[in-house]
């Protein structure tokens, strides 16, 4: 009577159903219903009605990359906090002090990034 194992099979079923709907609608039912008359104007890239200028897949702002780096740090932090939160009852007050120290060191990093103007968007 372990209720947790059946659930994982159910999740796999949901993934399969999730793939089945788009495949069914886009590749089985869709081609029967929709027209297919491509033309040069139709297949051109949309740019508010004017001729597209240059390429779109070029270099972009480095700030996106900085946010991605910060995200990795804090996402890992969140993951470390998950087991702590689940077993907090067993850890008690000692666990609270330890997590204070852990979060304190992470906040030094956040304040450093803040001071370096990483969080500003210009």
């Amino acid at each position, binding site marked *: 009577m372990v209720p947790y194992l059946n659930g994982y099979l159910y*999740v796999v079923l949901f993934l399969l*159903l*999730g793939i089945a709907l788009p495949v069914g609608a886009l590749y089985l039912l869709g081609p029967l*219903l929709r*027209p297919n008359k491509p033309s040069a104007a139709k297949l051109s890239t*949309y740019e508010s009605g004017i001729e597209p200028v240059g390429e779109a897949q070029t270099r972009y702002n480095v700030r*996106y990359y900085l946010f991605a780096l910060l995200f990795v740090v804090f*996402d890992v932090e969140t993951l470390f906090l998950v087991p702590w939160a689940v077993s907090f*009852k067993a850890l008690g007050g000692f666990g609270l002090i330890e997590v204070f120290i852990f979060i304190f060191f992470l906040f030094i990093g956040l304040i450093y990034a803040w001071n370096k103007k990483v969080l500003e*968007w210009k």
Partner: protein
Amino acid sequence: MWNNVLHWVDQPFTSATYLGMLLGGVLTLAITLGAVTYTIYGERKIIGWMQGRVGPNRVGPFGLMQSIADILKLLIKEDIVPAKADKALFMIAPIITYVPAFAVLAVIPYTFHHYFTARLNIGVLYYIALSSISIIGIVLGGWASNNKYAIIGGLRSAAQMISYEIPLALSMLGVVLLSGSLDITRIIEVQQQNGLWNVFPQILGFIVFLIAATAELARAPFDLPEAESELVSGYFTEYSGFRFAFYMLSEYVYLIAMAGLAAALFLGGWTGPFGLGWGWFWYAIKSFLFIFLMFWLRATMPRARVDQLMGFAWKYLIPLAILNLLISAVEKLYWLKG
């Protein structure tokens, strides 16, 4: 036999168990599609009412068939893949976004019977992990379109969603700490035992959750990825027909899933006032309140600026979410010992 079909959650694997699961999955899919159809209708009608308009009223009585007509129209529209686009990625990106959107519904417990719900011991973590896969589909769609609006929209989406995912996850952790479990059903049971909805000890966490959820769902006032006045419609500018529909569908499926999650984590899930039954009814009411709040925000708030948006998550929401986590730890030590 019939009993085994309904209670597949804690039965050994037999053909009845499999039938129960299949029934649960297909019914969830059907109900979700219906709910999304009428959420879109409801959104247009409610926002119309708030702005002193009528909203859709031509197709069917009170315009009730409007969304169905829209879906049929999308189904018979041509599927255009731009010549300059990266074809394989362009075609697969909406599916990558949609599949996790549907899969997260597997752990939302609408009733205490678990006819439709997988009881996972990592429920909350499962939701967070799967919902972040959708971001990959959005970035790929924007990149593969090879369109300037789409690529900016895709990158903005990615930056916004990863930034707001951290406060969202941290605000959920406060609830996890109080319940001592990641199992969403267990979280509701603890609230039932305490006779106290988590929204009260977690009021700060609930506020952070609401703001972060609005941004994560890319809804107004945080709908910058699709800011139509500057980016046409963001990452799905080049999409048409049913591929476009799958992007819209995943957006609304996430809205419903997030409403279900908010109801479970903060508002006591299926528990009703005065110990009344009808779990699914209370669950629907609570989810609807969350969805209504999202519509209300959209009708009320102007769009945030892109430079305010990212700073807000890192400078205010993340410190507040961590503060809430520490407050929950103190509450757990001295108040809700459970």
